[in-house]
């Protein structure tokens, strides 16, 4: 039932609005609304009940194992939420004067420092509001760098074919063409193809390392050297930063710019699809181009650096200073982990992934890159099962839901057929991993005896498989008031 269907005309059972509101006398009639929008008219209890029950229809980290590859669905500490919502922080106006902002700004400054340390970059801007915006900012800085040197003919950003879809999309948003570089069978970038693609038109390359294939790009130093020699810069997609925290730093690998997904590596909530936060870190040469605002300190207090202080900046990415509440959560998380905790993130997420990979292989599933170590995530291919049993990755995914686990990422990256990209994260106990492996074995067994049963999954959820074709063909994107009658 939709909230609109709980609505009753004239119902106002809330304590949420002033009883006497005064009048709109200052506003000429032609500016005023002629009829009220048909929003729900429900009591506070009806709203609470409706949304409480809706929430129960979700899978979430707080209720299920959620090994969604490339999304780093790890535990979101509850303290991060409650402390970021402290009245003094949650009510601070973004344009409050520095006299009333030192507490907040100190946290932002320290977070910049933490992120520098963790990534090995020279400077950080917290402004980007999500990973994709961080990507945009990164490529825009690369462009600004070339432009500032008068090197204006570079038109291409190289992108491995395994990259996240955001990578080429971001390159295009910055006015570049995205040129794909193929991946070798062992999961590393095809160096010959790279060499062939490099040239005076090369503005840079976007890499995720570990890549979305769940393997570490071993020849990263060589790549960096070649790209730099061609006059290009290296962009690091931080989606998989969780895999290397405290083990190896993008700055040390030779990257010039990196974005971080704080909702992944720094455990801010995914919130049903955001908000994220996508700070960017840069090497020395890109510093002048960082998006504003930045926080600096003169030792006495903290100040904002804005457009007028940073004339070469690519500019502003958002109305204020990024997703501050999310940045606070990341700061709190980082402070709770400390140096040792931070390092262990990579260690144990990698341990969990390698353990699962090993156990799944022992159980007869095929690794996409059997010769490689798993990083914090890994890929199995269900090509064999699809062929022999007629049950594909999507069927496995849906059936896993019945077993009370969220499915891994399916059919991404695109180059592995019947692909499961599995990322357990460091916060899962071995019991969860074992339960997943057991469920996979069970599902295969089910498929052996009754493939149709598996193909009909899920059965235990609020709905069964949905008709996506109908959804796209007969667009129904909003409740219509006439349904109310």
């Amino acid at each position, binding site marked *: 039932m939709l909230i609109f269907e709980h609505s009753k005309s004239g119902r106002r059972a809330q304590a*949420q*609005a*002033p009883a006497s*509101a005064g009048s709109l006398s*200052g506003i000429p009639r032609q500016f*005023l609304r002629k009829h009220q*929008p*048909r*929003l*729900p008219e429900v009591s506070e209890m009806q709203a609470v009940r409706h949304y409480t029950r809706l929430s129960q*229809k*979700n*899978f*979430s980290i*707080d209720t299920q194992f959620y090994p969604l590859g490339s999304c780093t669905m790890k535990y979101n500490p509850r303290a991060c939420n409650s*402390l970021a*919502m402290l009245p*003094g*922080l*949650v*009510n601070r*106006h973004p*344009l409050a004067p520095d006299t009333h902002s030192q*507490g907040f700004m*100190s946290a932002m400054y320290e977070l910049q*420092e933490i992120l520098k*340390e963790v990534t090995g970059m020279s400077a950080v801007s917290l402004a980007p*509001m*999500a990973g*994709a915006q961080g990507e*945009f900012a990164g490529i825009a800085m690369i462009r600004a760098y070339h432009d500032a040197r008068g090197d204006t003919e570079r038109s291409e950003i190289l992108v491995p074919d395994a990259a*996240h879809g955001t990578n*080429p*999309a971001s390159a295009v948003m*910055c*006015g570049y063409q995205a040129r794909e570089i193929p991946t070798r069978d062992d999961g590393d970038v095809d160096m010959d193809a790279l060499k062939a693609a490099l040239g005076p038109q090369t503005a840079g390359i976007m890499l995720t390392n570990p890549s979305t294939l769940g393997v570490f790009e071993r020849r990263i130093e060589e790549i960096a050297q070649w790209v730099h020699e061609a006059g290009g810069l290296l962009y690091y997609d931080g989606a998989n930063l969780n895999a*290397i925290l405290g083990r*190896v730093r993008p700055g040390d690998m030779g990257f010039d710019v990196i974005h971080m997904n704080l909702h992944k590596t720094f455990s801010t909530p995914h919130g*049903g699809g*955001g908000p994220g936060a996508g700070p960017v870190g840069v090497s020395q040469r890109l510093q002048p181009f960082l998006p504003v605002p930045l926080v600096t300190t003169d030792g006495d207090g903290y100040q904002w650096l804005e457009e007028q202080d940073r004339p070469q900046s690519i500019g502003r990415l*958002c109305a204020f200073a990024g997703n*501050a509440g999310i940045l606070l959560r990341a700061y709190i998380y980082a*402070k709770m982990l400390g*140096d040792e*905790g*931070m390092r*262990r993130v990579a260690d144990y997420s990698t341990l969990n992934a390698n353990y699962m990979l090993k156990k799944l292989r022992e159980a007869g599933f095929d690794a996409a890159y059997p010769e490689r*170590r798993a990083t914090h995530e890994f890929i199995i291919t269900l090509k064999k099962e699809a062929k022999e049993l007629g049950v594909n990755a999507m069927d496995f995914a849906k059936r896993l*839901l019945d077993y009370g686990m969220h*499915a891994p*990422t399916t059919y991404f990256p695109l180059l592995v057929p019947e692909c499961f990209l599995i990322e357990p994260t*460091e916060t899962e*106990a*071995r019991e969860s991993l074992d339960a997943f492996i057991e469920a996979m074995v069970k599902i295969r067994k089910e498929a052996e005896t009754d493939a149709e049963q598996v193909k009909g999954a899920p059965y235990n959820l609020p709905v*069964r498989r*949905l*008709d996506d074709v109908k*959804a796209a063909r007969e*667009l129904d994107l*909003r409740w219509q008031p006439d349904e109310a009658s």
Partner: protein
Amino acid sequence: MPFIPHTEDETREMLDAIGVSGIDDLFDEIPDNLRCGDLSALGPGLWEQEISQLMQEKARSDGQPLCFIGAGAYDHHIPSAVWQLATRGEFYTAYTPYQAEASQGTLQLLYEYQSMMTELMAMEVSNASLYDGASALAEAVLMAVRANRKSKSRRILMPRSLHPHYRATVHTLVKNQGIELLEVAYEATTGQTDLDDLARHQGEDFAALVIPQPNFFGVLEPVDEMTDFARANGMLAIGLVNPLAMAVLQPPGEWGVKGVDIACGDGQPLGAPLSSGGPYFGFMCCTRKLVRQMPGRIIGRTVDLEGRVGFTLTLQAREQHIRRSKATSNICTNQGLMVTAATIHMSLLGAEGLARAGTKSHANLNLLVEKLTSLGEIEPAFSGPVFHETVLRLPLEARRALRTLAAHNVLGGYDLARHYPELGDNALLVCATENRSEGDMEKYRLKMQQVLASRKQGACATMAKFD
């Protein structure tokens, strides 16, 4: 090991199962010379009590001043239920609803959100959110350039009365695609967009005209005329609106003869706390015929195998994870949690509650203006009608007045000098919402009175002793 559940025994057993002797071995594909490990600059981890004390100190040091700043972020009442529900683990810790069957809670909520936003905006379709208002406007501009079949122009008309940070953000986000923003002036007396200046572009080729309502000065724009101008000149009309204001003001879908093509803005006034500027959320609505050009997630209603109603992500062919370099936008994660809050917020207030919040804000601003102008030396800078924010002209530099007020824990507004030098140094943008009580406004008046008095006496040095 906070949050890492492995016991030493388990770690050992898992390493044995993998067949390596230690965790270091798992990183053996990383070239030796790249390995680091020293993050000691981070310092030791804090336990929850320590971080709690630290954050409380930070929060305390920022005080809880009395706030009359608006300028794009508004201190409205948020029902307690909103965040108690939105932070339920099942909403807070779920991700983008890729597996629809396991995400009906979030999906249905987003569908409800889309329904509410289209109602509020009087538009046909809505997406499920973008980042914030400024970046949503940039997406609208990009969308207009893509979608305007009548025009090949990459130029956009953008009033100077529009939020300067928004203009700056749009510039950053579109300039690399060769898109150009042209300013339209405002009338010095009314604070509204200068229709004559707009008329100068009659017959010129632009992809779109952006129409803010209210504008950055809090002034109501002649939106009907502007929308019709756009339509008449082959431009798409993009409304940039305060969504709460739309509970009482003519919504963009009804501006002019046919309404705008795209409506967008920042959803913050619908249940997002001020929170130092974010996370808020950008919203975007458009006409049905533009839906395939719209960026961001869109949720559709459909049926399952057994014919039961269900909800799913739809029109994904527009998105980066399918179309990659040909996507409508690189947007991916958006602001789901904020939309969750906004949807609950709108359900709790309803149209009537939102209208009352808006009306009370308007009435409070009027009262504040009355109080401040009664001091004799302060007057409104513009004559145009306003919603809940307005520009006042002070008899001293706004910067100086604000500094003194802040010392008394009153944040008196936003100084326009930097972004609008043509208004001089004395123009102050002030806002009042329904959260300000009469006592709050009286306090502002008293403090401002002291500011004015001390200025006359030239006794700045004694200001610090006020209270």
